[in-house]
Every structure is written in structure tokens, then in C-alpha cells.
């Protein structure tokens, strides 16, 4: 029997603290009463009401589209930024770039949202674009702060990559672009996938920045949830929360399974090498 340590107890307590509120949310999503806090029996009616709510469904579709395009663009920009920061020697503007990559990670959302809105208003006055604020402006805003997260994820992977394989490819005559697509890209692909997923969830989740830069045309899911939650607790939101938590948990479990399998494969290959006497 291992001695229980203080930090071990705190870890269990911290995990309980993180998960109990989510469990409560899930349990009450099956409550048949409209009063969320009084248990009145098991029912799935809030899920049916959720699926009949046209406003929520439309917002889900809007948010998913914005998140998809923001994450995709953020992966392109963030990977470039990571490449520049990790691989390139000092050049003018490198400090500026690395500051602009780390600052969005902590910048309060109200500041980012306000500043981007004022930029869009100014641009509309000066060059007549963007005429209306909506999905395009949210896409730009989300791409900007998501690419900072992607850059951090990709940069930490890039630092671990063995440079000698790329050098070998180029010694053998591969052009830099070809080397990038055939050697570097496959090696950092897991980081790109992780960065894309992170950017996708960040974009889906953002309320404050989207509220600032959006126009009447685009209402994202967090905006609908927020205006409903402001009025108080609603069981329909609990049902939505349950579906979100379920989706994220399944995706995480799947990612964990893939990681574990590739790790096991690597170990097996190593073992075979060893037993073969190589």
C-alpha cells in the first residue's frame, strides 16, 4: 500500500472540483422539471426541445462554419509564424513577431474585441471594406488570436524535430519547398492536428470578441447561450452542455487511443530491432 501524499490528495480533490459541476450539469439535463434545481424525475424532453429550437441550431451552424475556417487559416498562419520563430536566425522584426504571438495568449478579450471592432470601423471609413460586420469579421478576429495558440503548439514540436533528416534531404538535392512538404510536414503533422483542434474549440467557445466584431447578420452559439443564460438557469442549455461535453470527451478519448497505439507500435518496433540483434 502506497503512502498517500499531500499532492496526490490535492490532485484528486482538484479533479473532483473540475468535474463535479459538469456532472451536475449533465444530471440535471435529464430532469423533467422546468426548475433546474428541483429533481422531478427522468426525462429526455429537453433534448427534443433543443433539437426543435431553430435559433440554437442556426447558431450552431454559423459557429461551426466560422470555427472551421478560422482554425484552417490559423493553422497556416500559426505554422508560418512558428517556423520563423524556431528556424530563422535573428532578423529585424523577430522580437516584434514573437511578442505579437505571445501577447494574444493572455490579452483580455474585451481589449482585443474593442480594438478589432475599431479597426474594422476605420477600415470601412477609409477603404469601404468591410461594409457589414458579420462572419467575415469574426473569422478575421478568430484567425488572429487562434494563430497565436497554433504557433505555440507547432513551435514546441518544431524544436524537437531532428534537423539532420531535412539537411540530408536537401543534400540529396531536394528543394526547400519539397523538403518541407515531404519531410517536415509529416513529422509535425500531429502538432498541426492538435493546433487545428485547439483553434477550432477556441473559436467555437468565444463570446466576447465575437460580440464586439459581429454585426446583425451573424449570431454565434455562445451569443445565443449567453443571452439565454443571463435570464437564469435553463434546462435546454443543460442539454446543450451535455452534448458538448460528450463530444469533447469522445474526441479526447479517441485522440488518447491513437496516441497510445502509436506509442505501443513504436515500442514493439524497437523491441523487434533489439531481438533481431540490430
Amino acid at each position, binding site marked *: 500500500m502506497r503512502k498517500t501524499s499531500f*499532492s*496526490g490528495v*490535492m*490532485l484528486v*480533490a*482538484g479533479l473532483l*472540483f*473540475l468535474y463535479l*459541476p459538469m456532472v*451536475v450539469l449533465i444530471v440535471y439535463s435529464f430532469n423533467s422539471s422546468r426548475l433546474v*434545481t*428541483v429533481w422531478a424525475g427522468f426525462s429526455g424532453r429537453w433534448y427534443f426541445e433543443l433539437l426543435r429550437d431553430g435559433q440554437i441550431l442556426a447558431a450552431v451552424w454559423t459557429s461551426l462554419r466560422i470555427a472551421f475556417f478560422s482554425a484552417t487559416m490559423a493553422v497556416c498562419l500559426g505554422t*508560418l*509564424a512558428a517556423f*520563423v520563430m524556431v528556424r*530563422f536566425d535573428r*532578423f529585424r*522584426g523577430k522580437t*516584434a*513577431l514573437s511578442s505579437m*504571438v*505571445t501577447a494574444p495568449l*493572455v*490579452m*483580455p*478579450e*474585451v*481589449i*482585443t474585441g*474593442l*480594438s*478589432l471592432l*475599431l*479597426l474594422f*470601423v476605420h477600415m470601412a*471609413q477609409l477603404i469601404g471594406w468591410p461594409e457589414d460586420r458579420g462572419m467575415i469579421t469574426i473569422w478575421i478576429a478568430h*484567425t488572429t488570436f487562434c*494563430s497565436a495558440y497554433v*504557433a505555440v503548439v507547432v513551435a514546441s514540436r518544431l*524544436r524537437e524535430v531532428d534537423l539532420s533528416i531535412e*539537411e540530408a534531404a*536537401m543534400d540529396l538535392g531536394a*528543394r*526547400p*519547398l519539397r523538403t518541407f512538404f515531404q519531410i517536415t510536414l509529416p513529422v509535425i503533422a500531429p502538432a498541426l492536428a492538435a493546433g487545428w483542434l*485547439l483553434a477550432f474549440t477556441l473559436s*467555437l467557445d468565444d463570446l*466576447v470578441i465575437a460580440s*464586439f466584431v459581429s454585426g446583425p447578420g451573424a449570431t454565434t452559439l*455562445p451569443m445565443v*447561450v*449567453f443571452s439565454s*443564460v443571463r435570464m*437564469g*438557469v435553463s434546462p435546454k442549455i443543460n442539454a446543450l*452542455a451535455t452534448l458538448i*461535453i460528450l463530444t*469533447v470527451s469522445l474526441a*479526447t478519448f479517441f485522440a*488518447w487511443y491513437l496516441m497510445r497505439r502509436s506509442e505501443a507500435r513504436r515500442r514493439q518496433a524497437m523491441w523487434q530491432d533489439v531481438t533481431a540483434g540490430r
Partner: protein
Amino acid sequence: MSNFTARLWRLFKPSRRWVIAVPLLWLTLFFLLPFGIVLKISLSQAAISVPPYSAIVDYANETLNIVVTFGNYLFLATDTLYVSAYWGSVKIALLATVLCLLLGYPMAYAMARAPAHWQLVLLLLVMLPSWTSFLIRVYAWMGILSNNGLINNTLIWAGLIDSPIRMLNTNFAVILGIVYAYLPFMVLPLYANLTRLDMSLLEAASDLGSRKLNTLITVTLPLSKGGIIAGSMLVFIPAVGEFVIPELLGGPNTVMIGKILWAEFFHNRDWPVASALAMVMLAILIVPIALFHRYQSRELEE
């Protein structure tokens, strides 16, 4: 090798410039430049027009007029509401950061010391909540803390209290909400730092007769300084400007600057005052942001 670098340079030279230019231009246009515009608007006057502020530079009748107003900043400095909102935000954020650290450090420590095959699972378990939805996680506490919420109902049912304790819409709820929402961001950098900790140093300390607590204070804590700074800044800086948590969990007594800025912008439509509020907030946060940047760039470039 010199042949190789020469070839590399020749081939990369035209494209290298592009690789640098694209992210640099995008971030300059959509991250840096907007701050200049916020500064500009903060020096203008509110006006009933679209957009609702007066132009600073105006050219009419062959005269160039430049009108710069410091009135918005003066207004912020003299109105006690704003001063107390800044102070209140910093105080709440600071308290929440300390609580996060006190809970997060032992968690990260236990994770770093766990058997290797458990570490990934524990890391995913800690991070998973942050991938769901911030808004919904804050909302979860509304149902738990409200007057007819889970805690009060349970306490009344158990006969421990007669009337509900007011927990929702208090500063207590706001701090709890911040700790809950930001805990993963505290644990992640701490864990990353503590896994790299050289265990032989701890063994050496214990071999030399150092007690556990003594080792923690004199060896482990100083060595994990980078992680402590990064985690604390990841919690403190966004928490100062937090809007969702004080709006949903806070009460009328919770004056936090993010909430005030939101109200000035969306309800009063006073863009210049909202801009001045943002600039002052940025001025308060510039030192913590620089601190975070120093740690983060060391992480990125090493």
C-alpha cells in the same frame, strides 16, 4: 557544408522573405495596429453620429484642425467608480491567481511524479474541461450556488440551515468561478516545468539530510519559478479583464473593469470612454504581459 548553406540561402532567399512577411503583416494589421486606433479614439470626443465619436484630424476650409482631448482620461481619474473598478479587478484577479496556484501546484507536482503511463491520462483529464465551453462551465456554477441551487437545497434538506445562504451574485462566486475556469491554464505550464525537473537534485537534497518541506522551499520552488510565473500570468492577466464571470456570477457589488467597459460600449455607446478604459487597463497589464512574454519566448526559442 558551406556549399549546402550557400545553396540553401540562394533557394530560400526569395521565399524566406515571404514566410516572414505573411504572419508578420497579418498580426501587425489585426493585432498591433488596432491598439493605435484605440489610443486615437480614446483621445477623441463622444458624439451623436455614426461612428459615435468626433474626428481628431479634420481638414476643412483649407484649415487643418487637430483636436486632441484628454477629457476621457481625466474623467476616469476623477470618477471613483472607475478607480474602484480597476482596484477591484486587480484585487479579485490576484486573489484568484493565488488560490489557483495553491491548488494547481500540488496537482502539477503529483502529475509530474505519477507513473509515466498515467501522466498523459492525467494531463488530458485536467485539460479536457477547458476544451468544452467556458461559458457553460461558468453557467454550471449558477445552478449550484443560487438560492434554490444544489448546495442550499442540500443544506436545508439536511437541516443544517433554515434559510438559504446567499452565494451567487457575490465576489466569492466570482473568485470561485475564475479559479474553476482558469485552473487548467495554471496546471499546464507548471506540469511542463516540473516534468523537466532533475530528480537527482531532490535526491541529493534528501541525501544531505534536507527535510521534505525544506527541499520543496529551497530546491523545487526556485527551480519551477518559470512555470509559476507563466501559470500565474496566464490566470491573472485575462482575469483582470474578465467579463463573463462577473456578469454571470457577480452581483451589483462586483465592479470589475471588463464589465464596466462592456457597459460603456454596448449600453452607453460611449466609444471614447471605453477606449480610454482599455488603454488604462493595458497600461496596468503591460508589466505582467512583458513578464509572460519573457518566459514564453525563452520557451519558444531555446
